[in-house]
């Protein structure tokens, strides 16, 4: 080990003499920004926090539910590779790509006109538990109907809301939060109705609320999900 390496280690420890050396030595000064960033991480208490033991299972459960959700036909490895390499690297003539954009644009415009621009029609999505309800899980389905957007949640593991409280579902977008219904039990299917376009409200949350007359959200989220856009 060189004397410079010795002093750099001492600098990380917070040694004052090493600090003086670091600023006067050209070789060590070069490494100073790097060592400072390491010290910054070491001295931040949040760097030493540990995740809770239940987090691993919550991560796996969320993915398992997503994997079990009905999807389109499985994607082959060749298709994965093609998608990864990008549209223009595929052996497709430029005119065909341009034509495809025209067709896709027309279809998208038609869908937008047909259902009011709603995204996520017929789509399913996973609901992810928060630390407030670590055993909860479920999935959601979105369907645009004549009278509004029907959102069905299939939830389990969410305890019945305590007396004097209830669960409230919300959709959230850039324009803010819109309440879409309340319920009290966390096991089974819950049907909710939204009057706003799901293409503009990408996130669904479920919060625990108190019956206190306050219409604002408590912020106590128990489930969250991202409404897929189609």
């Amino acid at each position: 080990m060189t004397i410079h390496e010795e002093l750099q280690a001492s600098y990380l420890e917070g040694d004052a003499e090493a600090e003086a050396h670091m600023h006067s030595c050209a070789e060590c000064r070069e490494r100073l920004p790097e060592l400072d960033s390491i010290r910054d991480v070491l001295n931040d208490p949040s760097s030493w926090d540990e995740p809770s033991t239940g987090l691993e299972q919550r991560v796996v459960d969320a993915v398992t539910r997503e994997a079990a959700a009905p999807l389109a036909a499985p994607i082959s490895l060749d298709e994965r590779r093609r998608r990864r390499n990008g549209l223009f690297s595929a052996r497709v003539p430029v005119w065909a790509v341009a034509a495809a954009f025209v067709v896709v644009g027309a279809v998208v415009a038609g869908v937008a006109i047909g259902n009011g621009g709603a995204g996520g029609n017929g789509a399913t999505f996973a609901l992810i538990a928060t630390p407030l309800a670590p055993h909860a899980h479920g999935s959601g389905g979105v369907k645009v109907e004549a009278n509004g957007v029907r959102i069905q949640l299939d939830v389990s593991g969410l305890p019945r809301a305590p007396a004097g409280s209830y669960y409230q579902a919300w959709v959230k977008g850039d324009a803010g939060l819109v309440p879409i219904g309340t319920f009290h039990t966390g096991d089974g299917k819950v049907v909710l109705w939204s009057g706003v376009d799901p293409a503009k409200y990408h996130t669904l949350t479920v919060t625990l609320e108190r019956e206190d007359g306050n219409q604002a959200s408590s912020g106590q989220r128990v489930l969250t999900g991202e409404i897929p856009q189609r």
Partner: protein
Amino acid sequence: MVGRELAGRLAGGDKDAVRDLYREYGRLVFTVANRVLGDRGLAEEATQQAFFKLWQAAETVDGDRDVRPLLCTITRRVAYDIAGREKRRPWQELNEATAPAPTEGNGIERAWTTWRVRAALDRLPDEEAQVMRLQHEQGMTHTEIAEALGVPVGTVKSRSHRAHTRLARLLHDLREEVAGT
């Protein structure tokens, strides 16, 4: 390399790879998110979402490349999205666990540095990692650590120096890596 093997399994649609990815990198993802958000609960939410989004993006993962930089980037994005969401919340004052706004310098370099430092700490021998934690997390002096552990001060000093030396060596390529991120 573990990161490349796991990337290959993920790209192949193996959902069991997610559990192995979490066991390998879950703590690192959590640490990066926690540094951005400064809130354990939100950091856990970000961790969960990061792995979920990685799974959703599995078909675009290059199975021949190390998955760590991608996972770190997803984590940082998710953490920033959550930080932005928390800031916009109209009921923020009602929530006891209010997340502080991310501080300056919370860029991809900072996230990757956090990741690398935490990973290097995990490679230290237990007795050295213990001294590091007491010194940096608790802010204890060598004398206080010696009293707490019931060992001579000289032992603490040598463990501390060995640990910092090891850390400096493990992270000798940090600047080049960050520059190339």
